[in-house]
């Protein structure tokens, strides 16, 4: 609105503020501000050195015996991570086969990074890439071919399971979300009412109850003899939950598309689906991309709910590992490590979402 700069005019020269004035403006501009500054400096002065001492200076780093962590002067026991990181990250997966998970994780995360960069936003690149990625990763996780021993999904765990649940949620959830959003915008009252009821009911209940349904009730709905793996059931439950939230975001995007676009598409003689797929959705999804990424981050965090129903994602694997009486006292350190893993992933995605917002703004100017 305000910022109308073409690329040719250089940005205004930044005013050089003397250090003392910067300090005065920032920290001591008023009595209240000075008080706040002093208070925060005092608290930081108390907390930061203590934390540093606990976490770095006195911490036990190496993979020594747990007894060295128990001595009086020992701070944080990072040795617990050195000792337990394998079962924490990979769960019950057979120990000798952990390299497969590591390779799968590296491939998977690189493919996600490629997908996120704007340069590769092209179906002809991304579709084969993802098919290959999912193929290779499932081969590595299941095995059973090329001399890799077969591993049942019951034994999947740790960070790879988190990734599997996350991918499944997003991959199954996005199409459902688009359909629900279109259904909610439909002119047919029957379809609209069905979609609204479904979306609102799903959004009104906690994720846990949906997971309970997936685990406890869903098997009752199936005829005798037909069974689905519990992981698949949970994934479907999460996907539907995710889809209902995402549908609302996409609806917002659809509402932002002007009537003219619909009318132009109809004037060209396009049918409903062609109009949606070729004209409306590409624009609508672009508008609400930041919101979509936010809900994808939420989906990643929500995978941790499987702790309650006993699947071993990274958090529940850690909780289970920390039952070990020798290391039990150092649960906090283990959880801090898990928190760091989640933080890196979510923080990176949220910074990415801010970048997307900037790109969209560039386009609009």
């Amino acid at each position, binding site marked *: 609105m305000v910022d109308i700069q073409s690329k040719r005019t250089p940005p205004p020269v930044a005013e050089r503020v003397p250090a003392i004035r910067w300090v005065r403006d920032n920290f001591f501009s008023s009595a209240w501000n000075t008080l706040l500054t002093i208070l925060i400096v005092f608290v930081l002065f108390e907390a930061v050195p203590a934390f540093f001492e606990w976490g770095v200076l006195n911490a036990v780093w190496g993979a020594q015996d747990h007894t060295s962590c128990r001595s009086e002067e020992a701070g944080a026991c990072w040795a617990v991570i050195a000792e337990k990181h394998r079962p924490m990250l990979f769960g019950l997966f057979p120990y000798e086969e952990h390299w497969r998970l590591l390779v799968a994780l590296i491939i998977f995360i690189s493919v996600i990074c490629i997908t996120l960069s704007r340069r590769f936003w092209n179906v002809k690149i991304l579709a084969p890439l993802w098919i290959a990625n999912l193929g290779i990763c499932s081969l590595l996780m299941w095995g059973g071919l090329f001399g890799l021993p077969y591993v049942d999904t019951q034994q999947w765990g740790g960070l790879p399971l988190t990734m599997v649940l996350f991918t499944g949620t997003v991959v199954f959830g996005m199409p459902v979300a688009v359909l629900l959003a279109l259904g909610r915008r439909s002119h047919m009252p029957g379809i609209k009412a069905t979609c609204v009821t479904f979306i609102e009911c799903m959004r009104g209940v906690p994720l846990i*109850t949906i997971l309970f349904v997936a685990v*406890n009730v869903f098997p009752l709905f199936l005829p005798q003899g037909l069974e689905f793996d519990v992981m698949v059931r949970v994934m479907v439950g999460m996907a539907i939950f995710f889809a209902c939230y995402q549908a609302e975001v996409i609806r917002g995007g659809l509402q932002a598309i002007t009537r003219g676009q619909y009318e132009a598409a109809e004037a060209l003689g396009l049918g409903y689906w062609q109009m949606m797929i070729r004209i409306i959705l590409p624009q609508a999804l672009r508008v609400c991309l930041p919101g979509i990424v936010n809900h994808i981050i939420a989906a990643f965090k929500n995978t941790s709910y499987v702790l309650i129903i006993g699947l071993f994602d990274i958090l529940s694997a850690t909780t289970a590992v920390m039952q070990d009486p020798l290391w039990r006292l150092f649960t906090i350190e283990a*959880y801090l490590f898990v928190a760091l893993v989640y933080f890196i992933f979510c923080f990176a995605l949220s910074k990415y979402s801010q970048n997307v917002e900037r790109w969209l703004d560039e386009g609009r100017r």
Partner: protein
Amino acid sequence: MAEQAHPPKNNRSILHSIAFRNIAYQLLLVAALAFLGWYLYDNINENLDRQNIATGWGFLNEPAGFDISESIIPFDSSQTFARIFAAGVLNTLHVAFVGIFLATLLGITMGIARVSRNWLVSKVASAYVEICRNVPVVLHVIFWSSIIRLLPHPRQALEPFNGAFISNRGLMLPFPVDNILYPWVAFALVLGIGGALIFARWARFRREHTGQYISVFWPGTSIIVGLPLLVWVLGGAPLTWDYPALKGFNYQGGISLSPEYIALLIGITVYTGAFIAEIVRSGIESIHRGQIEASRALGLRHGFIMRFIIIPQALRVIVPPTASQFLSLTKNSSLGVLIGYPDLVNIGNTSLNQTGQAVEAIAIMMLVYLTISLTISIFMNFYNKLVAIRER
């Protein structure tokens, strides 16, 4: 299109009529849903029969047979499932209400701190927001729960001030012994709030009719605080504290907050607070600088600008997403099941395991949460209407 125009088709067939198609699609959907419903119902009946699981709501009148660690209404294991579910709902509401209150306070404070001109303040606030919202709420809750578990035993409890004890059994605080005067103090408080509201009304009426601005904040606060205080002092200022004291393995007396309650409360408050802080920040930043400059140019005072220019506009941006944060906090309180806080989901889960009646137990949980969600959204919609732009 570059192609030649198609020759007009013969659209007489009823299959090509849009109206007919629309009705057909909807009928198809209804038929599919009805079939699905019947199919699932049939399967579930057959499966339940085969597994000899009772159906129906009869179990609600049977004794629960298990006890819960804390409850607002008195409960013991010989009482019915219906009552234990009620206890669970109350526990959920309890933690959710306190959580919403604290998260709002925390969120507003941190949101304002993030836009502060003080570099230190804004950096501390953004560190809080980034760290807390990028870690799952599940991890927040079990993290706090395991920190509390590492606290010293009641015998070596920390005592931050006289009569307050922090241990791995929770937080114990002194609490005033009930007195015959207290209901009157409460009554005076209600009266004071009413008086303040009337005063605000009058001040507004006066402003709108004479243009004379009367500050409401200080007189209002003094009515609300002063009236109960006056009653209390006139009644002889009775105050005896009931101090918690170590008896056997735990503390007796005073007021106690269980470790599960504290862990759940801190976890969901800190997590949701970070989201509310972001919402508040975006609300404040949505106010155009020109608005403030224009108000200053008109010679308005700072407090007046805040009260009548900035806050009403920021609230329009802030209220709708905050409402959905309240909802998600309420739903996240279901994480009590993880750490043993007897909320609705925890009790539903135990009942499910005791009776095997999964469908009914889960249906109760879902219905209760749906009701809570709908109530909060109706209330917030009403509030949103109050602050929305009044177009004439």
